[in-house]
């Protein structure tokens, strides 16, 4: 299969079940919404080293937020249920509570599984905090020097999917970067998904384990490193000189599928030789996204 001359390899992306929370941050202006969201989602690319994967899902207009102010929705994901609560408390406590004018709400109100967040952060109020129950939901008012920080008591969590991906195999580094930027741009504000890596793009795709160290969980994906073509069992066609990866996490498999289809389509452009994907032989992750099956709907040639 080819899309605009770009080979879609007969392979699949292998993804994992994760726990996901959706955090809605509002503030007086988008400036402070973004300030809080960028800190909240900072250093959250991979659970391997960051304990959490997070990203901005989309910006929200005032009519979409609980308090009628500008906002943003963030997805925050971990491998386990208990971990998610801890990470939410740490991150919201350090990055949203501290940020001027913000408030923080649950973005998964229908999720039956709920974890206490405001109920833990309230103790920062040192006994001066108070709560209000509005429409059946409790919100904590924590006094701060600026005024009050409002945070919802409990946040919903769902089973999500992490590790949806595709690889852009290009003839030059510029072509790979240009295609990756196009893919990341196409996925901006796509509901239900985040791209947790910088700018939505990964240059350091990894394989499981290490040749040299037994303690390393992951190491460089040498089969896709052009500089190692001559000294390793390469997976790269001859014309390929640079590879970039798009990693996609989402609230469910359907959201990942839609995003992969959109992203791959955007990445199929001049200078790109092939689109591939990362997997572990299908043995580790329960979610398999077959590229050709995904793209069969909108292949152009």
């Amino acid at each position, binding site marked *: 299969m080819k899309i605009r001359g770009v080979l879609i390899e007969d392979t699949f992306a292998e993804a994992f079940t994760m726990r996901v929370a959706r955090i809605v941050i509002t503030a007086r202006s988008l400036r402070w919404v973004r300030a809080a969201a960028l800190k909240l989602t900072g250093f959250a690319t991979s659970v391997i080293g960051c304990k959490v994967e997070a990203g901005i899902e989309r910006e929200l207009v005032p009519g979409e937020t*609980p308090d009628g102010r500008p906002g943003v929705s963030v997805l925050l994901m971990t491998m386990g249920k208990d971990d998610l609560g801890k990470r939410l408390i740490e991150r919201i406590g350090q990055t949203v509570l501290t940020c001027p004018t913000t408030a923080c709400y649950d973005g998964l109100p229908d999720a039956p599984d709920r974890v206490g967040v405001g109920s833990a952060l309230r103790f920062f109020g040192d006994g001066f905090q108070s709560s*209000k129950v*509005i429409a059946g939901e409790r919100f904590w*008012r924590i006094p701060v020097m600026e005024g*009050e920080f409002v945070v919802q008591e409990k946040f919903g969590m769902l089973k999500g999917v992490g590790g949806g991906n595709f690889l852009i195999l290009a003839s030059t580094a510029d072509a790979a970067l240009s295609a990756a930027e196009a893919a990341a741009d196409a996925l901006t504000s796509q509901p239900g998904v985040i791209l947790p890596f910088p700018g939505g793009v990964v240059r350091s795709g990894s394989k499981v384990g290490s040749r040299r160290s037994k303690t390393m969980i992951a190491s460089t994906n040498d089969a896709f490193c052009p500089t190692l073509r001559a000294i390793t069992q390469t997976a790269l066609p001859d014309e390929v000189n640079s590879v970039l990866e798009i990693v996609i996490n989402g609230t469910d498999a359907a959201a990942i599928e839609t995003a992969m289809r959109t992203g791959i389509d955007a990445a199929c452009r001049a200078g790109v030789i092939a689109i591939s994907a990362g997997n572990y032989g299908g043995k580790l992750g329960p979610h398999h996204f077959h590229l050709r099956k995904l793209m069969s709907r909108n292949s152009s040639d």
Partner: protein
Amino acid sequence: MTDGLAARLRSTLRQRADFSEVLADSWTALSAAAMSQRPVYLERDGKVPLGELFEITGNPNGHIRFSGDLLTADRLGAALSSGHVTIEGSVGAEAGLGMSGGALVIEGDAGDRTGAAPPGFKRGMTGGELIVRGSAGVEAGAAMRRGLLVIARAAGDRAGLGMIAGNVVVFGKAGSNTGLWSKRGSVVALGSITPPPTYTYACTYQPIHLRLLLTRLRDQYGLAVLRRHFTGFYRRYSGDMAELGKGEILVWTAK
């Protein structure tokens, strides 16, 4: 889909009537016939079934609507714990007394001690939403522990008397000594008010939680929340300093 129950007053009540047991226990699944058997206590004639005073029609769906001149109907909605109750006009004293859940919407005025504590009890409302689209008499929301009381026009003296927690929102003029002796809880005054002398001014700010509350009142009950209520500032008074001092009166101000 059904419209719920409709209770239409058969003829004018000529004596005060105590409705405190009509909606006190679970009622949302009761048929019109079963609801007709709920007791009402007339001041002179004693206990009569509700069906003797009201024609009750419709099918149960968690909503009941009372219509007719109910100015002498006291304690309607007392101990309400679930469902949605609408009173089409004005109502007598102590509506929603000690309610713990559900919604009670009074389209007209309400008498004294609306949503207050039953006599001899320390706690008034412990939950639910009580909306008075008109004015309310004295001591509305007295000893409230939790829940929401909204008065769309004027509130009589001592609204929120001895509040333990919860919210009282007054759109119009609030009477004297509003919030007196409160321990915690919030009085939100969108109209004029003079906080009791035992309250102390803290600051002028924009409480974010009020945006949530006011949005709820606008969207759920169609109350006339104005743009200035969202965008304006509120003067915060802490009190009652004769009690815990953890309560507040938030007074809307343009600046």
